[in-house]
């Protein structure tokens, strides 16, 4: 199968959907001629014209608001939010308006829109351009949240997001734009709420999202060399969350680590770990461990930034503790 970059996969997903449905348009900063600073959208304005690939002023709250109104009235906007950190600017329109309109109107109004943005540190971009804020939107009822972990996932999940009739926030990993993966020429969608088992294993389950999927896979390789067999699962969407697949795995392996690049406290690892603990408690040989980013603003200097996110080595270390039964706490 051909291999393409995540960037190209996103571009294809948008182009295919826009060809299919004239109600779709995209808006954001420098999305047209510039094709975004990451060049992900290059070529789209040439095909679809400036009325469907719309360059906005630097007005995140404003163009998010426009998208909500457009979505209520027959359009299907895709909002391009240059950095995930700018979510803080659009929270009111996203969480007070888009997320609640369908419910508040008793189902009369719908808001089919997609916010495409990104997450991930270690790009030396410092505290306001490095956050992974997906837990925040996942906490708000009415929003779906997708976290693609490869070019293949990015294309399939984005296409599904665009067809969904609810607001969806999809986070790409900034560091992955040039990573290639096999992506079929034929059309495919990836359904929301279906986790993917990337690697089967017996001794423990590594549940990893987005940027952390590669980390988990590397950790699983390292563990395999030491005779430990790790199952690796990517939930793909955290809202909806495929509890069943996660639970089945944990019931089999009896041990799990949840790995996510958002801040650890009050983040995604807490939700997944506590659901596993609650629903698979009597199958667990050890507590579910959580590995999120450190609870610190992302520091600029590489000397510190690299310490803040989970690495394959740190995962291996925790996995070994878990398997060795090294978790008994003092009474």
């Amino acid at each position, binding site marked *: 199968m051909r291999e393409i970059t995540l960037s190209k996969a996103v571009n294809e997903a948008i182009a295919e959907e826009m060809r299919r449905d004239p109600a779709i348009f995209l808006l954001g900063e420098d999305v047209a001629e510039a094709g975004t600073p990451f060049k992900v959208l290059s070529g789209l304005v040439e095909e679809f014209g400036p009325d469907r690939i719309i360059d906005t002023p630097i007005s995140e*709250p404003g163009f998010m608001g426009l998208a909500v109104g457009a979505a209520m009235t027959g359009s299907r906007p895709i909002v391009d939010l240059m950095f995930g950190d700018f979510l803080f600017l659009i929270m009111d329109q996203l969480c007070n308006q888009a997320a609640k309109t369908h*419910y508040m109107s008793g189902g009369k109004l719908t808001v089919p829109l997609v916010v495409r943005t990104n997450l991930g540190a270690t790009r030396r971009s410092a505290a306001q351009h490095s956050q992974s804020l997906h837990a925040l939107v996942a906490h708000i009822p009415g929003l779906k949240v997708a976290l693609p972990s490869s070019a293949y996932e990015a294309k399939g999940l984005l296409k599904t997001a665009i067809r969904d009739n609810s607001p969806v926030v999809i986070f790409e990993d900034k560091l992955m734009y040039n990573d290639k993966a096999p992506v079929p020429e034929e059309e495919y969608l990836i359904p929301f709420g279906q986790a993917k088992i990337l690697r089967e294993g017996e001794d423990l389950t590594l549940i990893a999202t987005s940027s952390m999927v590669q980390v988990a896979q590397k950790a699983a390789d390292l563990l395999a060399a030491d005779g430990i067999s790790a199952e690796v699962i990517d939930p793909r969407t955290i809202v909806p969350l495929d509890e069943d697949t996660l639970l089945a795995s944990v019931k089999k392996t009896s041990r799990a680590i949840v790995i996510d690049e958002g801040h650890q406290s009050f983040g995604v690892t807490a939700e997944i770990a506590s659901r596993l603990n609650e629903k698979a408690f009597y199958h667990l040989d050890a507590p579910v461990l959580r590995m999120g980013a450190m609870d610190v603003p992302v520091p600029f200097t590489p000397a510190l930034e690299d310490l803040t996110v989970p690495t394959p080595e740190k995962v291996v270390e925790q996995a070994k503790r878990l398997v060795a039964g090294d978790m008994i706490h003092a009474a």
Partner: protein
Amino acid sequence: MAAAKKKSNAEQYLRMYRQMMRIRVFEDNANQLYLSAKMPGLTHMYSGQEAVAVGICEALKTTDRITSTHRGHGHCVAKGGEFRPMFAELLGKADGYCGGKGGSMHIADQDNGNLGANAIVGGSAGIATGSALSAKRLGKDDVTVCFFGDGALGQGLLYETMNMAALWKLPVIYACENNLYGEYTKTEEQAAGDLTARAKAFGIETHIVDGQDVLAVNNLAQKLVERCRKGEGPFFIQLDTYRYFGHHVGDINREYYRPKDEETLWKTERDPLTNFAKWLSDEGLVTKDELKEIEAEVKADAEAAVNFALDADYPDASEVTKHVFAENPSGL
């Protein structure tokens, strides 16, 4: 205005009068429901501002859209809303416009082009502007009116969206209802400089109109709506008006921020219903009896609707988890 024109417009005038009366009566009933502890929560009444909503909405088609505010009953009625589902919504009943899930501050009436009241001050500026963008992109000539209070001029979102509306010549009208107060604070203490200059800065054509004069409002609105349809938008209108009650039903002792004689002055000298009724009679377009009849009909309607709403059922408990997400086509 030529006498002939007036006659031929009589039907429209009476509809405007009736619509204003419907708002006035709706609010009196809402207040009663609050005072008799039959309505959950609080509500913000539109009484006094009727000519604004009616003057503008009478210039709109059903497919034209509006966005509304926390003080939204007037816009809802003016855009074609019915009493029964409105009262039912205020009481949290299943027959309400939003199945009881929205309440007074989120009343929406999609079929009549009302995209909803909004409990975030200024929160609908984006929605209205996006609705206009949608109409333009989809090749429809629908116009969107964004209603908001003077207080919403404090919100940056409005400036962001006016800038985009101006850049892209969107068919949207920003209707600023300047009722002199935002909650318990005077407009001049909240808004520096000149109100309309804030839209002019983006190259938007602005107008100021007496919001108590339904004909003045309607004439202006008709012109601007038609120009919007032709791609000459956006526009900004400042409508000077007054709310008769407190900020919400519970705001009773308000002398510390708003003098009694100011209230009296507006109610006696500038009431949109009284003055329009007088004009209609003076022009011989209606008799006193006809006016009384309209009022009586509207009141009877309201009473029936209130009783309907009081008797209606609450939504079933199973509704609580419905509508969090929209339904999807099969295969998704």
